[in-house]
């Protein structure tokens, strides 16, 4: 965990409302982040926004890190205005990582900008020759910037069928998982999608890890702000009770069984 003023090497619109930023961040990259982990970004030097914005790492190449983000409010708008060559204040790498289970075949699911950590995980599995399938959902083709390659196990879905398979990610998840011996789901995306994935996984007793979001004060365990409801039976080290877990330290990746959505 380190704070670094990284230089912005790219920052552009890659799909409808979706931006990609690349930064050269040798220190954070030097800590060998893994897929699932995130960075926490100061979007402005002034104290108008006292809090950083958490963003999943969407890729790493040497000293370069990538994030993929959507303009949601004032902070992400500011993020989109960093010109190439400017410097940006990052804290990272933070959080835990996706974990493979011996003998289980990974099925990766990304919805909306939730694709960010999934893409990186996909890339890592691919370069390690680990067999897996990746499903990326969006509302329509304008929101996709990737190619539908079902033969290579890289499947796009759109709600309106304008690219890839028509429908939400759910039917595709179902048809793929139910054909597999021992699938393990890894999903990141909007809460309704995560809920549906969790429900499916529980019904079919499929292994499942979810990457969740939570408003964060510090991302370093000193504010207790990022708690989520948690059903683990052991008292968590940081949150002092089995009922809550700190997303910044214990997450953002959870066993789907352990968390409860409001």
């Amino acid at each position, binding site marked *: 965990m380190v*704070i670094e003023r990284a230089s912005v090497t790219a920052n552009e619109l890659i799909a409808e409302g979706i931006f990609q930023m690349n930064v050269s961040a040798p220190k954070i990259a030097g800590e060998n982040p893994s897929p699932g982990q995130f960075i926490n970004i100061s979007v402005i030097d002034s104290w108008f926004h006292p*809090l950083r914005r958490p963003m999943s790492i969407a890729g790493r190449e040497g000293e370069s890190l990538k994030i993929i983000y959507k303009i949601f409010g004032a902070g992400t708008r500011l993020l989109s205005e960093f010109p190439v060559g400017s410097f940006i204040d990052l804290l990272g790498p933070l959080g835990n990582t996706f974990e493979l289970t011996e003998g289980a075949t990974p099925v990766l699911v990304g919805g909306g900008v939730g694709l960010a950590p999934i893409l990186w995980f996909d890339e890592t599995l691919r370069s390690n020759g680990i067999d897996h399938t990746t499903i990326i959902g969006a509302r329509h083709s304008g929101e996709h910037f990737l190619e539908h390659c079902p033969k290579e196990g890289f499947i796009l879905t759109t709600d309106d069928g304008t690219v890839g398979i028509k429908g939400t990610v759910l039917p595709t998840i179902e048809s793929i998982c139910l054909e597999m011996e021992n699938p393990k789901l890894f999903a990141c995306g909007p809460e309704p999608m995560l809920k549906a994935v969790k429900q499916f996984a529980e019904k079919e007793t499929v292994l499942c890890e979810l990457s969740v979001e939570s408003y964060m004060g510090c991302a370093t365990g000193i*504010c207790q702000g990022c708690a989520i409801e948690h059903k683990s039976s052991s008292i968590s080290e940081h949150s002092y009770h089995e009922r809550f877990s700190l997303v910044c330290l214990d997450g953002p990746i959870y066993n789907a069984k352990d968390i409860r959505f409001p």
Partner: protein
Amino acid sequence: MSCNLTVEIAGVSFKNPIFVASGTFGYGLETQELTDSSSLGAVITKSITRHPREGNPPPRIVETPSGMINSIGLANMGVERYIDTVIPRIDEIGTAVITNIAGFSIDDYLYVMEKLEACKAPICGYEINISCPNVEAGRMEFAVDPELTGRLTESLREVTKKLLIIKLSPNVTGIASIALAAEQAGADAVSAINTVFGMSIDTQSRSPYVQTNVGGLSGPAVRPVGIACVYKISRKVNIPIIGIGGITSANDAVEYILAGASVVQVGTANYKNADTARSMIDELELYLAENGIENLSELTGGVIPNE
């Protein structure tokens, strides 16, 4: 010129006047990768209660203009585990540690303090978070009533010879009278301010952003409130004042010190960068050097009022 940053409160000496605030620096051990806590004047640990507390349900935090609202709900490990896991590691913090205590009855506070006294915890004192409802007094907050504050202070004073600091709430008509009650009941110092009542509502869901609806506002937005409180208290009491609220730079710290604070605590600013407080120490030295001030104490209460 080399400046003397050391400061004394009721006989206890601190390296410098830059402390970190309760609830904004964990137990002092979490951010060792990001800063050197041993440079700080002191670390105030997260409020400890008699029993472990899970805290409030999420969401607990939201940003506001130059500030944030929190409703953590005193999530903490409880005094038992604090004694078992934090106290043995206190030397890793490398500077003075002050334990912040919260409670819902005088007994609660006494219980925690007695435990800590009994184990001879190597801490230099206690900061008492009185912004908690007193269940015995109809859930009225200790902090709003001079009498309740006085009684609590008195009871705790009997238990410890260590530093006893009462942490005041700004959500009152007369913060200086509460400070006075603490002083008269034997407090060594008061700190001000705790968070300001604040609320923010999601206009899409129509629900308040934090689970408790109303939460505590902190950050630069409330700095003028904290400085005004310190100033008012300083006109009324003689014990040292610890300034808190929205401090992000040495200049902010100097404002508090001029207003009457002997030392300050950095809170919300730690979240953006856990090294903020430490870096202010150098800035502060520079300010003192540039202004020809040899002893920090020359600055305390040094405001030149306009009338």
